[in-house]
């Protein structure tokens, strides 16, 4: 009896196992998107265009947080939202958390785009597509200019806390470079890109967004690259080089101040809306100019048009706003990456010590455009510095310059604090997750 049972059980088990082994499962597919390896292992022409569109698109991610936080630090405007009181607390008091959105959002967004660019660079190295040498140079020149731009944005926030530049291998991230080393590396990237762009023929093998209109050929894009390099050199106080670079850039003393390179927006599909647009006279979510922007303005300055008097002032935790920031009039308006106005101001800055007259003539281009009379102040470098910073403050209002400008000229202490609790930080902390 027992034997039979054992036999029976054995047979059942055997059957089960046999049936089981014959039932194979197929490995799963990635159902919901293109695998990242597709690009890095071998970049095709079609993928290139989509990857470039991805890079231009991702430049805009986190933009509002980055600009709002820098504008609050620079006491250009306040951003208040009833939904997150930290814009009237941490960001204004400079009691910054290394693990929350105002620290991590810009950091992660910029590095995500660095990842996009590095993926394409890797794909370019492995490509078997029929790209010509000039096309490859063009792609590389474009990508290195963009990666340098993203690093510069990171540097602006992180400054003395440093950033990593060698991040191509995500498992072995490079060291943190201090502000001097970082700027040098960014400069070198831009210079290398310029060399590539110079040998890139007449056209890119991809299209750029309309925000790059006029700058969408290798030679046009090179002008943007030179302008960006001039900004970096000004940050490094290499003023003679700034002037040389501006000469190769799209700077035009008599041209439209708004000529330049822009982020574009739309409401279509997965596109983004301009995150910096808020309608006038809102109550819960507002961008209101710091009172000093109105108080310090010269009479007749048309740049005051960037703010609009509110029907009712707003008061968030004793921070009061009487004027809405109204730089962007709709949720599809372009946001500048770099404009002619900044380049002219860089020319003034580069000349203020070596050639005050040239500096003043550049300043006057800006003043006149704003409806102000020619500069009549002193001609010392210090006086010109005051004037240039003043003009930069009004010309580049809300474009993330004032905090960086006051920092590089050692003038952060001059920025106003409206409450006893308030402070201006020197830099954004290194995110917690960097394990520093």
């Amino acid at each position, binding site marked *: 009896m027992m034997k039979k*049972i054992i036999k*029976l*059980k054995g*047979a*059942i*088990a055997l059957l*089960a196992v046999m*049936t*089981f082994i*014959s*039932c*194979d*499962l197929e490995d*799963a597919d*990635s*159902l919901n*998107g293109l695998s*990242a390896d597709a*690009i890095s292992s071998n970049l095709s022409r079609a993928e290139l265009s989509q990857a470039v*569109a*991805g*890079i*231009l*698109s*991702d430049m805009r991610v986190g933009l509002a947080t980055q600009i709002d936080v820098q504008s609050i630090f620079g006491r250009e405007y306040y951003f208040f*939202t*009833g939904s997150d*009181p*930290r814009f009237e*607390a*941490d960001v204004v*008091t400079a*009691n910054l*958390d290394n*693990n929350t*959105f105002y620290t991590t959002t810009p*950091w992660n967004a910029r*590095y*995500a785009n660095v*990842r*996009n660019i590095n993926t394409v660079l890797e794909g370019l190295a492995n490509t078997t597509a029929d790209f010509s040498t000039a096309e490859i140079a063009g792609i590389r020149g474009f990508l290195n200019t963009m990666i340098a731009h993203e690093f510069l944005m990171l540097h602006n926030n992180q400054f003395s806390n440093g950033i990593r530049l060698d991040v191509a291998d*995500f498992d072995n*991230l490079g060291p943190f470079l201090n502000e001097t080393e970082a700027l040098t590396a960014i400069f070198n990237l831009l210079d290398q890109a310029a060399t590539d762009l110079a040998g890139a023929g007449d056209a890119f093998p991809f299209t750029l967004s*309309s925000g790059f209109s006029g700058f969408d050929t290798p030679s046009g894009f090179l002008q943007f690259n030179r302008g960006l390099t001039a900004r970096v050199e000004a940050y490094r106080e290499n003023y003679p080089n700034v002037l040389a670079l501006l000469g190769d850039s799209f700077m035009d003393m008599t041209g439209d101040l708004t000529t330049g390179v822009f982020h574009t927006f*739309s*409401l*279509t*599909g*997965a*596109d983004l809306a301009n995150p910096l*647009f808020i*309608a006038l006279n*809102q*109550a*819960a*979510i507002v961008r209101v100019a710091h009172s000093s922007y109105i108080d310090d303005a010269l009479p007749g300055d048309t740049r005051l048009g960037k703010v609009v008097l509110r029907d009712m002032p707003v*008061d968030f935790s004793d921070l009061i706003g009487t004027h809405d920031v109204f730089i962007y009039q709709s*949720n599809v308006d372009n946001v500048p990456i770099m404009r002619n106005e900044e380049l002219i101001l860089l020319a003034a800055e580069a000349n203020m010590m070596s050639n005050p007259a040239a500096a003043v003539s550049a300043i006057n281009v800006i003043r006149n455009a704003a409806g102000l009379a020619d500069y009549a102040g002193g001609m010392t470098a210090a006086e010109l510095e005051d004037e240039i910073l003043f003009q930069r403050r009004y010309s580049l209002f809300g474009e993330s310059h004032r905090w960086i400008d006051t920092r590089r000229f050692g003038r952060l202490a001059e920025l106003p604090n409206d409450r006893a609790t308030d402070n201006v930080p020197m830099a954004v902390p290194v995110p917690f997750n*960097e*394990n520093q």
Partner: protein
Amino acid sequence: MKRTLRSVPFTLLFFVLPMMAFAQGTVSGVVTDANNLPLPGATVVVKGTSNGVSTDFDGNYSITVASFPATLQFSSLGYATKEIEVSSASTVDVSLEESATGLEEVVITGLATSVKRSNAANAVATVSAAELAEVTPPQTLDGALSGKVVGTLINSNSGSPGGGFSVRLRGLTSIFGNNQPLYIVDGVYISNISVASSGLNAVSAAAGGGNASSQDNATNRIADLNPNDIASVEILKGASGAAIYGSRGAAGVIIITTKKGKQGKTKVNFSQTIGFNQIIRAQGVRNFTEDNVGAADLAAFIAARDSGNLVDYEDEIFGNEGFISNTSLSLSGGNDKTSFYAGFSREGEDGIVQNTGIDRSNIRLNIDHRFNDNIKIGLSSNYINSSADRGFFNNDNSGTTIGVALTATRPWDNLFPDANGNFPDHPNNASNPLQTIALMTNNERVNRFIIGGNLDATLFRTDNQSLKFVGRAGTDFFSQVATVIFPQELQFQRIDQGGVNGVSAVTTTNNRNANYAGFLVHNYRTENNLSFTTQVGLTNEQFSQNTVGVITTDLIGSQTNIDQGANNTTNQFRLEQEDFGFFAQEEFNYQDKILATIGIRGDKSTNNGDANEFFYYPKGSLAVNLHNFDFWNGDSFLNRLKPRFAYGEAGTFAVFGSLFTLLNSTLIDGSVGVVAPGTRGNPAIQPERNRELELGFDAGFFNDRLGLTFTYYNKEADDFLINAQVPGSSGFVATQRNGGSFRNRGLEISLNANIYDKEDFSWGATFNWFRNRSEVTRLDVPTFNLGGFGNSLGQFQIEEGQSVTQIVGTTGPGTPVTQLGDTEPDFQLTWQNDLRYKDFTLSFLWHWKQGGDNINLTQLLSDFGGTSADFDDFDFDPNINNGTFRINNGLFAGNAAPFVEDASYLRLREVGLKYSIPSETLENWFGDAVDNIGIGVSGRNLINIFDYNSYDPEVSNFGGNGLSQGVEVTPFPSSKRFLFTVSAQF
């Protein structure tokens, strides 16, 4: 799979040798219950053999006994088993008593077998139909389990009609993987997913800030089941019980059995409930005076005050009473071959916020058929149609949710519509909550079929052994259409207010689960009553989800079709997974004295890096019924003692798609682009493994008048899945990996007492006390945060040596991050009482949760709006009022401590008083037509005692999602329910 089902039974026939049985005599008789009514379907077995029969429609049985004397065992579900010795062929009539202790009920211990509770080695919790839904009609199944199961933490995430619950069995099972139990209804793996509705986040921008998860609390789909159809719920709380479910069992398994028909006269049950709900606790309005109203608003305040126009907007929004109506009708009956249960129900409940509510219709048909003594089939089918309007609550970054809008609304703001129905703009906020309530739509509509079938075929049977085949197949299909409409006239949708001129979104989900299984169960019994039950089986589960969302903005007039607008955004998510497993188990039973089980489950799945790699989950258990040994003194006050021990392992799958690094799509200037995702995939990801050891004993005192169950468990989650945060400079935010271990240890003590039991009066009570403690024992990645809004507002932190559910934050500028609380309760205690006096029954359930903290940010947002009710009180500092303290000394000082609050509560979860009209009276009134009429009044959450500074400490902004339970941001407040029920049985 199909091949198995078809071929195995036939092949087996070759192994089966017909056994000759020598008829020595026949015993026959009638089995009845205590009221002398026949008991159909009762089992009669010759003890020590597997020779058994069932009673027929009239309770008659006839069994052939091989040799006399023999002991006949008479049993029927819910009745105490009786043994009678017979010495010759004769007539034996037996009357069975209803079981008072539940020891006779069966609990499921294998995929195809079950044992009597008295022989179980696991602390399996069971909730009967009476406990589940009869005291007071519940809204959802998971809500109905609250407070009734030792070792569970059931949290209502939102008061929005239609549910939204999370169920944690013995602590948190997984941090990033699934931590909700597997639900199985009549053998069908059913889906409990929640699908976020597109369009809500587009307006609230909740995920745009510090926490990228969707925060709109979609319904979890277990809410579709009708609690009235459920006969019993069995809960396998940890891996030791749930190892048989392998890779899906780690978070526990909730096995639901629906009602079946019984042989006998067709019974009709009808019940109608009506009632209402109301907010559990309103927070109140700040006491505004000329001194605390800001200068800018003073004139408006005085004008409103003097004209008597100060409005309590909390009352205006949450002060409604929602009407509740539940109608249910069931028919059940059958003959000796076929029985059926048919249930129809319609439930309607309005929310405490206008234009919210749920309607749910359920149709069920369960049929069981017996071809002959050897082959039985069963079919259960359920169709559900539900529609829930859920309002617009929780966190936002746009000032648009109703909850956030309320925090900015002062009594003098005029938000009411004019005579033409035009709402004014909110003077202090981006949205007018009254307008939002009146005009917006957030609806989830579900059509769902759950169908399961099983075949039970005895292939052969002899005196001492039997072999049967059990086949099971089931599918759960639902289609959910979520409609979100924000019309263009809403304040925040108007172009002049920076809006997008209306949003309409449709999210369609088709979800299908299918499971197939086949088992062979062999019973063998030796002459000295040692029995072996062997089962082997194969299982196959398939899961498929396809969610398509379309969001349209800039709508044409009042049109809401998604093609009636300027801009479309679409998204799609697909999930396909197939698991394949085998299962083998051996159970030993020595004379009901020593009970042991060993078993193993092997699983492979397309969700693993190697789809054909097996993961094995073993189990083993031992229980000893000391009181069944001869040495036990049967007259002792301790009449029953069963020490037990169980060990098992079970798994949790990585989130679908964890294997891949998938590029996201984007668009700029009309060109499609691809961008790197935030999370880097990991092709080497493995399921996480839970190892649970459970020790305990069951004891009965004074002839089981008092029952005590004591259980200790130690649950280790090994290689737990983490969405590990990586340095952002890598270009990724996180990566999936197996990254450490944590454990849950706990105690569960259950005491039930039959305090008084006489004909006119009886009183039974159950106390459950339980606690759980967790600790991260190994962490392969640096300490990381998750699940809140940053250190200055409190968040969760996974840190070696600390509780998994600790809440951390900073306490001042530049201070280190420290532990501020823990969502884990110190303990929970529930007290269930059932009293009967003549024809009245009174039942009530108290639920005390002691400890456990929440992160309460509703309060903070109200402070910023200047509207919190306790703004001017002095609880923190004698010189600084609460509102100012929380802002200046809390948030501005980087001090999260004021936001972490004790979330203890004591609730009267359920109370019900029922009167059954005496049967004599019924006979006078209706003759034989009506069997029973009951009238009852009942309520849920009628008494709530808590110190917590908001609507309800049971809340979760992030839903049941992972760890982040207990974060509160302006939720839909929970409600209490008052109900009146009339029921009749014909």
